[in-house]
């Protein structure tokens, strides 16, 4: 909410627009989409095939769904001055739980999905307890589950890719309602719920207070431990949902590879969205934009026809440019050189 309120008051001008913190991430996203359009001329094309909407823009939304979900949870954790490195592993665990349950038992698939989300919440609870009650540094506390989580997932799947044929579970990843894939609905629902939860209750304010000044918050009577616990549990649930999507998408739980390194994409998305790793103010909507930026770059690279050897380098360069665009130092430098250039040109024409 706070990310959208600032500009209107001072009337419209380019300057007040570029000063709005929402401007640069959205601008970067549009720029990247335009760039993709230049590389692949039909990038913006959207067509309906067999009652389902197709097109690269939709692909970005579907493929971006896991990181979008992770970035929502990660934003809350980072706002408390924490970090959650375990989300990739939680993806593997939750996927494994759901896949193994539906393929080896007669359990109702909806129940299996709920159990899997519950397991994600438990993982978050574990992280939260280590951080909030045992005062273990978040990076270390969540590293434990990051490292061991995949092992746990492998134990659950017995080291194989656990495949399943259940249509209900598969629907989570590939189902279509009104032409739109189900993961997109999940993202919207989670975003709306979390947004309501943090901005229509005191939770958002308390998270920001704890993240910005832990000690002062304690003096003001805020139970920081509960707030942190909430953030990590939310992150665990988001990771479980991401895990369900990824597992349902390929109808199999791949303990080794599901969600591998996605924690880093999620952290990057939060940073692109302007939430500081030092905690405090957070911007859920912009984190989602950040996640979409990352996915747009990846989809663009896939469609560009560049040799795969360049994938990582291109991604790194584009993300670096996005981050530099947001850096005050670089922006000041650019505006100064533009002004100087203008001055010179005026001097020449005079």
């Amino acid at each position, binding site marked *: 909410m706070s990310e959208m309120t600032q500009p209107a008051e001072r009337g419209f001008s380019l300057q007040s627009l570029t000063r709005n913190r929402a401007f640069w991430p959205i601008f970067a996203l549009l720029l990247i989409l335009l760039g993709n359009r230049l590389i692949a001329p039909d990038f913006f094309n959207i067509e309906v095939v067999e009652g389902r909407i*197709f097109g690269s823009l939709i692909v970005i939304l579907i493929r971006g769904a896991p990181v979008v979900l992770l970035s929502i949870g990660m934003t809350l954790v980072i706002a408390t001055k924490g970090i959650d490195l375990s989300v990739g592993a939680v993806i593997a665990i939750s996927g494994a739980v759901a896949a193994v349950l539906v393929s080896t038992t007669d359990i109702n698939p909806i129940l299996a999905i709920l159990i899997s989300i519950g397991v994600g919440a438990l993982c978050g609870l574990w992280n939260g307890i280590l951080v909030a009650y045992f005062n273990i540094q978040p990076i270390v506390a969540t590293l434990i589950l990051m490292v061991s989580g995949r092992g746990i997932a492998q134990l659950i799947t017995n080291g194989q890719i656990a495949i399943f044929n259940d249509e209900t579970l598969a629907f989570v990843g590939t189902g279509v309602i009104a032409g739109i894939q189900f993961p997109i609905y999940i993202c919207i629902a989670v975003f709306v719920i979390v947004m309501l939860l943090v901005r229509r209750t005191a939770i958002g304010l308390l998270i920001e207070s704890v993240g910005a000044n832990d000690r002062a918050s304690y003096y003001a009577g805020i139970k920081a431990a509960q707030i942190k616990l909430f953030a990590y549990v939310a992150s665990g649930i988001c990771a479980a949902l991401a895990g369900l999507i990824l597992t349902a998408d390929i109808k199999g739980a791949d303990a080794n*590879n599901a969600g591998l390194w996605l924690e880093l994409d999620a952290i990057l998305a939060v940073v692109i969205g302007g939430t500081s790793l030092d905690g405090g103010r957070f911007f859920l909507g912009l984190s989602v934009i950040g996640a979409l930026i990352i996915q747009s770059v990846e989809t663009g690279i896939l469609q560009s026809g560049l040799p795969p050897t360049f994938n990582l380098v291109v991604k790194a360069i584009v993300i670096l440019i996005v981050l530099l665009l947001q850096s005050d130092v670089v922006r000041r430098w650019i505006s100064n050189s533009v002004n100087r250039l203008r001055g010179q040109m005026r001097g020449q024409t005079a």
Partner: protein
Amino acid sequence: MRFTKLSIILLVVVALIVPTTFAQVPESGEGLTIGFAQVGSESAWRTAFSEAVIAEAEERGINLLFSDGQQRQENQISAIRSFIAQGVDAIILAPVVETGWDEVLQEAADNEIPVVIVDRNVTADRSLWVTRVSSDFVHEGRLAAAWLAQATAGDCAIVELQGTVGSSAALDRQQGFNEVIALFDNMEIVLTQSGDFTRTGGKEVMESFLNTMDPAEICAVWAHNDDMLIGATQAMEEAGVDPGDDILTISVDAIPDIFLAMSEGKANATVELSPNMGGPAFDAVVAYLNGETLPDWVPVAGGIYFPDTAAEEYERRSGGE
């Protein structure tokens, strides 16, 4: 012209796969004493390889002297010397490095003990060893391409799902595949991307291929492993394309799930080379002792699996767990 080339390749492939042996020493090698100098047990693959050789020797009644070199060449050299001292009938060497074997191999030759090299290569003089047995990624790529050339009469627009960029499995399979399709003017890789050897990766990349290109123009998908191919078949199905029919598939590994896909008609073929180099190595020893001349290189058994045996293979491979 094209067909001549094709049949030559197929002949070569068939010749490589079918082993032939005869005479004085029993075909199984029963009663022979053979020393096996293994690199070590540094990976699960290596351990499986050692176990396969030991099991194969037991089955054939070969007296196998096994030495674990703990990844050190000096350990392997002293193992070979002790095999020589014990007067074994033959030595199988899985060298840890390629160089530095001349002296000890010369000692074996002086004692008229034949040496068969398995897995990695050696730089020693060709006269010092009998033959080399190896299973390699390049050959898997060649087999895959050869089948595809046959199935499409050498005319095919291929999209490629690469493994993890820079991994030897990806590099070598790509190299072998490209070697063969280079022989056909109308076989071409039109799109290539990395799917990181994962199902999700394969699916995402295939989706983008189908987005970028008219699916009708894609003749076949070639995946560096079965997992990526399974992901790709899902992408095709969701895009209304019939994998195995509209677009042919070829991949490597022969994991159980690919047989399931083949039995459902969603995949066409998978390549597998057996990790068991013991059998061919023992066969080579027997052949040599029986006076046959051996080629420089003997590939291991294995080949291409098709939908006709898929149901049965799936049963066999997934039942074992």
